[in-house]
């Protein structure tokens, strides 16, 4: 078990190393001069050279990467080109918003998607199944930004015109300062993200449950005289859980690296919004930082999912 974990962590570290090298060198073949961006259009050659020296970009690429890597290991990701603040700090400030968004939405999409999937799978072909399928199709075909704009228009803009403030226009309030305000600001982003994702999970759950409910051990459970609720939730869901956990791990990890569209639409100052700003500003250290953060989440989530497998399935133990 320890050996397995050590192997997985070593492998994950390798993935991050390759990723860091890839994004780092990518920026040196990309066009654009960071010195010119910082010093402005009117800067002289001498000024530019000075800026380059300060940034350290006058040194050979390999040397720069070496410095970056050794600093990164201590948690120092360099400084933003824009405002000279430490990248790690800038990103750390953005994490709570993204984390709040993803965690809340994940709970919501599981709470909606899994029961719809189960309802659909229990009576395939029935009216209830068709309703479930319609939900899945609608959710999957709605782009998040359309749903986001629509909800803002219907639930914020129109009521506002009528003199009602049902929801805030956007933005993020810290959980630590005022939990109620935090939740009020996140309610629309949560629902928007959760509705599309719930469709994905409903479809996955439906497929899994259809397979599982045809298994022999489900027949055994019924032959024991268990109630249908127990058959479905204890025996069926238990077996359908593994692929759901895999998907959930991957989705959450991906989103913690930034939920670009939702954060933009609702003006949440999260990691995704930061990434968009960094790309617009050509702020390389921040882009590299955000990419590495995303990579870290995905690697970590994969290890956690593997550990879950071992917990869930006695046969792999």
């Amino acid at each position, binding site marked *: 078990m320890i050996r397995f974990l050590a192997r997985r962590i070593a492998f994950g570290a390798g993935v991050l190393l390759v990723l860091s090298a890839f994004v780092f060198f990518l920026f040196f073949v990309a066009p654009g001069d960071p010195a010119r961006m910082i010093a402005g259009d009117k800067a002289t050659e001498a000024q530019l050279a000075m800026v380059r020296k300060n940034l350290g970009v006058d040194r050979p690429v390999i040397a720069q990467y070496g410095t970056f890597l050794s600093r990164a290991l201590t948690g120092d990701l360099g400084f933003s080109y824009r405002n000279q603040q430490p990248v790690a700090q800038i990103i750390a400030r953005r994490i709570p918003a993204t984390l709040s968004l993803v965690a809340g939405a994940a709970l919501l999409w599981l709470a909606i998607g899994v029961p719809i999937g189960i309802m659909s799978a229990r009576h395939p072909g029935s009216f209830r199944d068709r309703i479930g399928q319609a939900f899945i199709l609608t959710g999957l075909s709605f782009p998040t930004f359309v749903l986001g704009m629509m909800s803002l228009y219907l639930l914020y803009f129109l009521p506002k015109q009528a003199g009602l403030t049902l929801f805030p226009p956007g933005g993020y309030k810290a959980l630590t300062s005022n939990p109620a305000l935090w939740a009020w600001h996140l309610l629309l982003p949560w629902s928007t993200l959760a509705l599309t994702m719930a469709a994905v999970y409903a479809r996955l759950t439906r497929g899994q449950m259809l397979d599982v409910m045809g298994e022999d051990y489900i027949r055994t459970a019924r032959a024991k005289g268990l109630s249908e609720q127990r058959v479905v939730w204890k*025996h069926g869901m238990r077996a359908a859980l593994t692929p759901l956990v895999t998907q959930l791990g991957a989705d959450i990890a991906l989103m913690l690296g930034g939920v670009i569209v939702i954060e933009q639409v609702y003006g949440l100052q999260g990691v995704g919004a930061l990434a968009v700003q960094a790309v617009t500003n050509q702020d390389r250290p921040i882009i590299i930082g955000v990419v590495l953060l995303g990579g870290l989440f995905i690697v970590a989530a994969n290890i956690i999912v593997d550990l879950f497998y071992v917990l869930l399935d006695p046969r792999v133990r």
Partner: protein
Amino acid sequence: MVVLEARNLTVDIPTEDGVVHAVRNVSFSIRPGSLFGIAGESGSGKSVMTQAMMGLLPNADIRGEVRFEGRNLIGLPASEMRKLRGGRIGMIFQDPLSSLHPYYTIGSQIAEVLHAHERISPEEARARVIDMLGRVGIPSPADRYDDYPHQFSGGMRQRVMIAMALILKPALIIADEPTTALDVTVQAQIVALLDDMRRDFGTTVILITHDLGLLSSVADDVMVLYAGHRLECGKAANVFRAPAHPYTAGLLRSTPASYKPGSELAPIKGRPPSLLATPVGCVFAPRCTEALPHCATQPPPLRVYSDGVESLCWLEKGAGTTAPVPPRAKATHHAGQIEPVATVENVHLTYQVGSFFGQKRTLDVLKGVDLTIGKGETVGLVGESGCGKSTLARVIAGLTPATAGTVKVLGRDMGALDASQWREMRRQIQVVFQDPFGSLNPRRRVGSIIGDPFRLHGIASGEERKAKVRHLMEIVGLNPEHYNRFPSEFSGGQRQRIGIARALALNPALIICDEPVSALDVSIQAQVLNLLRRLQRELGLTYLFISHDLSVVRHICDRIAVMQGGKIVELATAERLFADPQHPYTRTLLAASKAPPAPTGGKDRVLAETRQVAS
């Protein structure tokens, strides 16, 4: 006194193709404490009927009446039905591995039955489960309570299922093919256990099986189903002594055990009807050898005989005695010099296996096997699952290299072949696989499947290939006009013929038949066995025949090798092996396999009553 009585039970299942009439107008009654056998081939409706009775087929349209403990099970509210299931009626299914939940411990799965039906503390439930596990023969049950199903062997898993079915001491247990997925020696143990438990607890048992040998050894009463109809019913002793219905008689005739080795089997011709259509006359008439002119046009009456046997048949005197089949002489082998096709010398095979967390260990699958297969003979390879018989076949076919030892086929060392020789060997050794459904590509036409060997080895193409394929189809008894059909349009037996035709295409020196008939019903099995024998006689083929079924092996093989734990423990001619087994394991195998006794007649039987049945 009856425990359960079914009257005019009819089960229809709506499907996309139409309504499947799975069970039609079946009536029976079961005496308390008896073992009631339901026999039938696949599609006879035996499993569907019991599952419908138990309310496990929610989509089925069920009519008729099933009385159990004073109540009609058909139409019983779901909550009442649930109380009966597990509480008053226990069920045991075919495959104990897939029937147990892989993620829960066996103890908790059994305890769940207690908790579902009684208010009981976890400690008390645990104690009762452990007691029950001990009674069904699980060693050190207290320690094994917290083990998962995959940590048990097949036989032990079925014991767990039996413990689960018995824990509340139900009045009735329905065992649906409880031994079919198990090895023959384990089968005997499980049947003995069921029989013991029935006596200990006074439980009535419904045993559903396709295995007439098994039924003849344990059942008190039997009912024979065919295409959803109850064709025959009565005391097991009387039915097996003198089957009244031609179908039952035909089934017994199809069993290789009732023949002298080497003789031709008398299979039931044709194949079972579609369950979508409603027959006008007798459902068995198209396959019946004794059919009268009106059998196909008028529904048969129920004949009740003096010994209590009932038969749904127009024949007044019941089925005729065993139709004499002229035993066709087989080309006898001269025991002296036979030219070897394949020789296996001291072959070992060792696998490296690593567990999930990396610990490596070695697994010896073959531990020094010697075997010679002579030209024109059939060598049988028998043994229980995991004994290495299929692995040995793969080694002989050159699909898995041996770790040590030599395999020579046609004088060539299979371990030292270059690419072109290996290709040539692929021609000389062909394999017929067990599963006729899984081993044919469903998207390719039968003609191209059978023609593949010609294509792959660049032997014939175009019209010439087509002609050869048609010829092959004719040889194996398929209609050459079905050249363009897909495998799904053929039945199991026909698919196995397709597999045999493909194997024959290149005139191979050796055909390895890996359990070729074990997925087939007994009447179809007899057809395929006859085909294999005929082909050998006509084409001089050499077979290596792998099977777990001793009666099949005995029937078709010249010599039989008994394998156990990666070794051949006994090798003898078929007759000698059965008459005078030397190795204790061979004796165990022989003792465990049960064959139905040959019918001895029923001359004293007279027709007592004839009833018209509404159908």
